[in-house]
């Protein structure tokens, strides 16, 4: 059995010596924070134009995370590339010849990449929260208010889980292009559109991103949204189940298919 610390070290070298790591993670942070800040500034100026129901359920925490809808796409790219470039470059054959235990190889890679995504996710989450609150002015909340810290930490976890889910999908599909071709439209379009369609939204609610983002809400049914059949942690749990399924699929594919 290969030494796990050695494999972890090797995977860390892999991840830190390619430029895609830097630009995808930087994108995730900048896009999330910039769009979050812009929306917070907009909300402040437009607050009085909101419908009464929206004003009643105004959730300053959730508003500051608005940028994640786009920022998460960069996390998807990060997750997909971490696994997918092993296949597109042909490196997978060298990697598996060096670490023939499929589980050790895959889960070491995923552990390193997810830890990095988690750190970046947390930094992004706290940064976008504090900047957003500063821009919301009189409508702001504070980190010490009930459930706010849970939402901010949860947003960081959400980012890491999105990345991990993407890694699992890329391990199953064994191709960066194919994985991005499925995940990007899914998170950016399909999930967003279906959750606005009556009927379909009861299903879309259980999609990983929809369920997982429940953790970022502080005010129940924030912004006059439909009540969800699960709580914040329940939603994150549903997302975690998706992640586990993707990882199990990825592991089985790696174990049984020819490299």
């Amino acid at each position, binding site marked *: 059995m290969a*030494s796990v610390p050695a494999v972890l070290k090797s995977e860390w070298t892999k991840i830190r010596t390619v430029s895609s790591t830097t630009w995808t993670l930087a994108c995730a942070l900048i896009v999330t924070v910039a769009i979050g800040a812009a929306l917070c500034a907009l909300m402040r100026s437009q607050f009085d134009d909101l419908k009464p129901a929206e004003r009643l359920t105004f959730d300053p925490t959730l508003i500051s995370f608005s940028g994640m809808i786009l920022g998460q796409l960069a996390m998807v790219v990060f997750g997909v590339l971490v696994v997918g470039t092993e296949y597109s470059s042909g*490196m997978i054959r060298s990697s598996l010849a060096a670490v023939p235990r499929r589980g050790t190889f895959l889960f070491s890679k995923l552990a390193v990449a997810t830890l990095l995504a988690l750190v970046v996710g947390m930094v992004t989450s706290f940064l976008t929260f504090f900047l957003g609150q500063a821009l919301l002015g009189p409508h702001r909340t504070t980190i010490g208010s009930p459930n706010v810290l849970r939402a901010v930490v949860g947003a960081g976890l959400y980012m890491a889980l999105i990345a991990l889910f993407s890694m699992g999908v890329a391990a199953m599909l064994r191709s960066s292009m194919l994985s991005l071709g499925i995940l990007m439209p899914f998170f950016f379009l399909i999930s967003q559109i279906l959750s606005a369609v009556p009927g379909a939204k009861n299903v879309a609610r259980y999609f990983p991103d929809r369920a997982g983002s429940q953790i970022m809400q502080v005010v129940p049914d924030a912004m006059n949204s439909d009540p969800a059949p699960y709580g914040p942690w329940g939603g994150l749990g549903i997302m975690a189940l998706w992640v586990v399924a993707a990882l199990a699929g990825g592991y089985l594919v790696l174990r049984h298919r020819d490299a």
Partner: protein
Amino acid sequence: MIELEGLTKRYGSKVAVDQLSFQVRPGVVTGFLGPNGAGKSTTMRMLLDLDNPTSGSVRIDGKHYRELAEPLKYIGALLDAKAMHGGRTAYNNLLCLAQSNRIPAARVSEVLDTVGLTAVAKKKAKGFSLGMGQRLGIASALLGDPEILMFDEPVNGLDPEGIHWIRNLMKQLAGEGRTIFVSSHLMSEMALTADHLIVIGQGRLLADTSMADFIRQNSRSFVRLRSPQWERLLDVLHQAGVPFLQTGDGAIEVDNGRIEALGELAAQHQLVLHELSGQQASLEEAFMQMTAGSVEYHAHGATTPGGPPAAPPDWGGAKEAPRWGAFGQDKGV
């Protein structure tokens, strides 16, 4: 020592590797020869546990590949030059492989120096030529200073200087007592590097023999005669009891004939000769003969790929196959 036992790989109904059993012994360069599509690369991938065999097994020093704790220290392989991440530098590509097997970083610089890539160690691998990629692949094989080395078509893309270098490297490594297993589709390349030869065609073992035996048994020598009076020449040869073959182009070939004796025979009967020459069939031809029945992608041209230009139609071809098939058996693999 690498041991294959009944190794078989099927893709659907197509058999890529068929019941391969042989051993690769230490201290010599073992050539693994076969035409394109014969199953060489598939076999090598199965040796490294990259592809799962349909049946049969491979043992590396008695162990299954997946049981090796730090496999790079046992077996180093060059599979293809593209098995590296183009966005990473040559040094970093090797470093991450080294780290996974607890090989010190200093060894990375050492192998880069061995393959002559020190100057481009900090360059991204995607800018590398095929030859440089090949050298990088060889460097990765050498990383763990392994007892077994496996090279899949190592001379591909190398310039003459590089080819010369890899030949010497392999001989030197074998000289140190290591097991060297190298594939090629070029007989001429094998003749220069390999001490032992394993030939496959359509996934089946065709020969497992020492290079010396192979050369002895397969270099057919014959005398080629051409005459404007060829009908009389045939009669003369017939009367003298000399076995001969007629080629398609009007020449006559006498296997293992002596030029002197044939020249004198012609003179006695006052025959005009336009050609009297000693010929040696090359190993390349012998190899083509052997695998003629098992070449997957035939070129459809005027000449049959199975036979050399000088060979008569009734001499070459797959009919000879049983003779070759016998090697594998009498070598007792």
